[in-house]
C-alpha cells in the first residue's frame, strides 16, 4: 500500500523518469537519443517521426522490460520480449513489442506486471495487455496503449519509427 502511494506521488512529480527498473535498463539508456534519423515520411498531419535505435535483440530477455524512450527522451517507454508471436511484434520470433509507459488517461507511469503481462497504472488502476496490442483490459483511458512501430535490421538493432496513438501530455507526438 505504502509503495503504491509512493508510486502515485512519483507519478505526480516526476513521471518523466519512468518507473521501470531492470537489470538491462542501463543498456537502454545508452541507446536513447543516439543515432536519430528521419523515418520514412508519411502524408497528412503525421509528424516526421525520428528513426531511433532503441536496443539490439540481444539486449532483451523474455519478460524483462527494457526502459527506452521514443520519439524523444521526454517520452518514456518500454521494450518487451514475450517469447510468442504477438500483434505488432518484430524480431526473428515476432515477439518484441514497444509501448509508451505514460498512462494515456492522466499521465501516470505504468509498471509491468510480469505474471499477467500487463502494464498497470497506480494512478487510477487502468491496465493494458501487451500481448493484445496494448488493449486496455480495464481502465479510464479513451484509447488503447500507444504502441511503437518497430523495425529490426540485419544486425538485430531495433528501431522505433512511429507511434499508433497520441501520447499523453503532447498535442503532437513529435514535439516542436
Amino acid at each position: 500500500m505504502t509503495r503504491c502511494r509512493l508510486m502515485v506521488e512519483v507519478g505526480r512529480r516526476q513521471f518523466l523518469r519512468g518507473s521501470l527498473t531492470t537489470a538491462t535498463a542501463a543498456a537502454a539508456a545508452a541507446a536513447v537519443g543516439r543515432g536519430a534519423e528521419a523515418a520514412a515520411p508519411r502524408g497528412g498531419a503525421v509528424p516526421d517521426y525520428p528513426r531511433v535505435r532503441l536496443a539490439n535483440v540481444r539486449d532483451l530477455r523474455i519478460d524483462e522490460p527494457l526502459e527506452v524512450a521514443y520519439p524523444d527522451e521526454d517520452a518514456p517507454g518500454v521494450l518487451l520480449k514475450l517469447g510468442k508471436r504477438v500483434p505488432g511484434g518484430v524480431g526473428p520470433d515476432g515477439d518484441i513489442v514497444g509501448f509508451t509507459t505514460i498512462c494515456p488517461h492522466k499521465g501516470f507511469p505504468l509498471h509491468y506486471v510480469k505474471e499477467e503481462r500487463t502494464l498497470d497504472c497506480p494512478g487510477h488502476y487502468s491496465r493494458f495487455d501487451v500481448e493484445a496490442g496494448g488493449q486496455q483490459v480495464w481502465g479510464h483511458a479513451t484509447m488503447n496503449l500507444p504502441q511503437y512501430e518497430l523495425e529490426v535490421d540485419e544486425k538485430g538493432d531495433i528501431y522505433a519509427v512511429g507511434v499508433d496513438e497520441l501520447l499523453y501530455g503532447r498535442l503532437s507526438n513529435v514535439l516542436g
Partner: protein
Amino acid sequence: MAYKRNVDRLPIVPPDAEELNVVCHFCIVGCGYKAYVWDANREGGPKPEQNKFGVDLTRQQEANTAAWYAPSMYNIVKKDGRDVHIVIKPDANCVVNKGLGSIRGAKLGEYCYSTVTGTQTNRLTDPLVWRYGQMQPTSWDDALDLVARVTARVIKEYGWDGVFVSAYDHGGAGGGYENNWAIGKLYFQSMQVTNIRIHNRPAYNSEVHSSRDMGVGELNNAYEDAELADTIVAVGTNPLETQTNYFLAHWIPNLRGETLDKKKRLMPDEPHEPARIIFIDPRRTVSVNAAEAEAGKDRVLHLAIESGTDLVLFNALLTYIYDQGWIDREFIEKHTVGFEKGPQEVPMYPARADSGEFAERWPGLDEVIREIRTSPEEAAKICGVPAEDIVKAARWIAEPKAGGYRRRTMFGYEKGIIWGNDNYRTIAALVNLALATGNIGRMGGGCCRMGGHQEGYVRPPYPGGRPAPYVDKLLIEGKGAVHHIWGCDHYKTTLNATEFKRVYKKRTDMVKDAMNAVGWADRERLVDAIMWAIRQGGLFAVDVDIKPTMIGEACHVVLPAATQGEMNLTSMNGERRMRLSEKYMDPPGQAMPDCLIVARLANHLERVFREMGDNEMADRFKGYDWKTEEDAFMDGYHKHAPGGQYVTYERLRKMGTNGFQEPAQGVDEEGRIIGTPRLYADRKFSTPDGKARFMITKWRGLQAPGKEEQKRRYKFLINNGRANHVWQSWYYDVDHPLVMDRWPWPFLEMNPEDMKELGLKAGDLVEVYNDAGWTQAMVYPTPTAKRGETFMLFATPRGVQGNVVNDGVNELVIPNYKQTWANIRKLADAPTEVAKISFKSKEYKPPT
C-alpha cells in the same frame, strides 16, 4: 490488433476560442467539462501566447495537466451552420471531478455528430414514417399531423387509457428539467395518462419508494461527505465503474488518508483516521480491488453475500448495534418517531408489518427490533458470510470512536438492491440502520442512492395510483392503442424481454400491414386503416430518439431529437448540484430538442381536435408556445421547482460547472444562487411532522413471483450490471470502435472451473436460457467469480440480459433483474472479432 486511431497530432486550441460550460451527458456524477470551439480553417500554436492554456506546448506536459486533450475529446462539428473545431475536455476547476474524465465522458468529442470526421453519422436527421413498406423521411408537419390524428382518434375512442407512453425521467442527455417538464405537462396536465413507464422499468414508480416514505430523500448528502466519513458502506454498487470520478475524486482520497487535514479542520473535536470501507456485493468488483490497493486489505471488508439476502444482513447489523447500545438515542428521540408507538397513520404499502397493529400506525425503533431481531449467526446462515464479519461490519459502522465520539458512516447503495430482491423492504432496512445510527444530515454521513443518470425531474403530479400499472405487461396483454416512446429502448432494457419483443413486433406489424394497403397522401383513409388495425389488436408506435433504436424498428413514426450539447440543458447530479450545460453545436438535420417536439405535437393536437369540432379538448393543449428550451425551463423549473424562482439560465451560466446544490435558498448580492449542500442538516425530515419513520422489514425470502422456483431449477446465477467502457443502452457505444473492439458481445464472467465443466474456452459464445427466454454472451474467465455465479453485461445490443429475466416484480412493480438463474450451453467458438481481445483479469495489480 487492438483498435488504434493513428492520430499523431491534434489542432491546438487558439487563445480566442469560445469557451462553454459543459456537464457530462451521462452518469449521475455529472463531471464538469469545458468545450472550446473555433473556426475550422485555423488553429492555435505551441507557444504560450498562441494557445488557450498559455502553456509552452513544445514541451511534454506533466501528469494531470489541463493543457492536453485526447483524440476522443476532439471533433469537427457544425455550429451556427459553420464547420468548427471542438475540444471537450474535463474542467480542472470543477469540484465534482477535479479535472478527471472517465472513459465515457472523455469521449464526448467523438460522440458528436460529424459529417466531416464521420462520427455518429447514423444520428436521426429527419422525421421518418412507414411509407410504402419502409421508413422514409418527411417533414415535421407531415409526421406530427399523422401522430396527432391517430392519437386524437385513439383518445376519442379509448379515452386516456388508449395512450401508452414510455419516457425517461432523468437528467443529462435525453432528459433534464426542460424535457422532463415538457413530457410531464403533455401527458399529466393536457392529458391524464396513467399507462406510462420509465426508461428502465415497466411502470411509473420511484426506485426508492420506501426511503421517501420514511421521510428520507434519497440524495441527501454531499460528495464531500465521502471525504469526511469514518466508514463508507457501499451496497450493491460498483462505484469505480459506474460513478467513476465520484469514487476517484472523493472516496479514494479518504481511503488514502489525504483528507485528514480537512476532517480535522471541519470536525476539530474528535479523532480521525483514513476511512474504512465495507462492500456488500455477491461479486468481487474492481472497486473492491482498488480500495484494497489504497487502504490495505485490513481496512476493506467485502461481504460477498448470497444474492438477494441484503435485507437479512441489514436486520442483523441493526440488531447487533442496538444490543450494543451504539444507536444514537438523542437523535432517535428528537428527530424520528422514537422507540415506541409511532404516529397513527396507515404506513405506506407495502411497508406495514405482515399483521396486527402495525397496519394502522408506524412503529418505533424498539418495536422494529422486536419484529426483525436477527442474530449475526442467523444472518450468517442465510447470507453465506461469517458471523464474525457481520460483527466486524457492525463495529466499523457504529462502534464509538476513542473518547466516545459517534462514528460517521456514509451509506451508498444502488442497483444491487434497487433492482434486487424485495426492493421496498431492503432499502427500508438500510435506511433504518442509517437513522438508528444518526447518520443522516450530518457531515460524513448520508444514506443515498449512488444513482444512474443525473436527475432533472419537475413535472405536474402523475395522475395514476400506487402501485402504478405494469405497462409492459399490459402491452403484452394487448392493451393500449397508441404508444409514444421518448428516449427508451425496451428491447434492450426491460424484463421478460423475449416475450415483450415477440408480442410487440406482432402488434406493430399489424398496423404496418394496414398502412401498406393505403396510399400515404390519402390521410383520412390512412388514419382509418390504422384505427382498423388497432381494433384488431394492433399498436401504433411513435419513437422519439437521437439514434435508431431496436424498438424503433417496430415503430411507424420515428422523430429525430437533439441531445445535450445541441441544446441548452439543466440537470442535477448525485449531490443535487445543478448546472446549465451549454449548447456547443447544431443538432443534426431537422432534429429538435424533445421539449420543442412536445410543444409542436401539442400544437398539432390542438389543431386536430379543433378540426374535429372538440374545442374543449383542443383547449387542453394550449400553453405550448415555446420557441426555445429556455421557454420550457421558465415554464417548468422556474415556476414549479422548490426554489425555482431564484434560478435562471443567466444565473446558472455565471455559476459555471460548479453550479449550486438544490434546492435554491435565495440569491446573494453578487447574483449567485445560494444552495443546500446537505439535506436534513436541520433534522427536519420529509414527513408531515418532520420526524423520520422506521419500518418493519421482515425477511420473506425471494419476494418476486417465480424467483424461488427459477433458483431451484437452473444452475447459474446470472447476476448483471454495467461495465466501465459503456454508457447505458450503448446508443453511442454501438458505433464507437474503442468500445466495440473491447466488448463485441456482452461478457459473461464465469469461474474457470465452471467453464471446464461445460467445455468452454475464453471468448466462446454461449446461450443463456431459462423459463423466461434465451440470450447470448461471450465467456470471460474470472477466477474471483464464485462457482455457479456469473455476471453478464446489461443492456447490450448483441445479447439482451433482460431476455432471461422473468416477469416477477415487487408490489410496486419494481423489476428484479439481479436475481435471475439460468442454464448455459455453448453456441460457437470465439468469432474472429473476439479472438483478438484480452481475457486477462480486470484487477489492477500494484508494483511488487
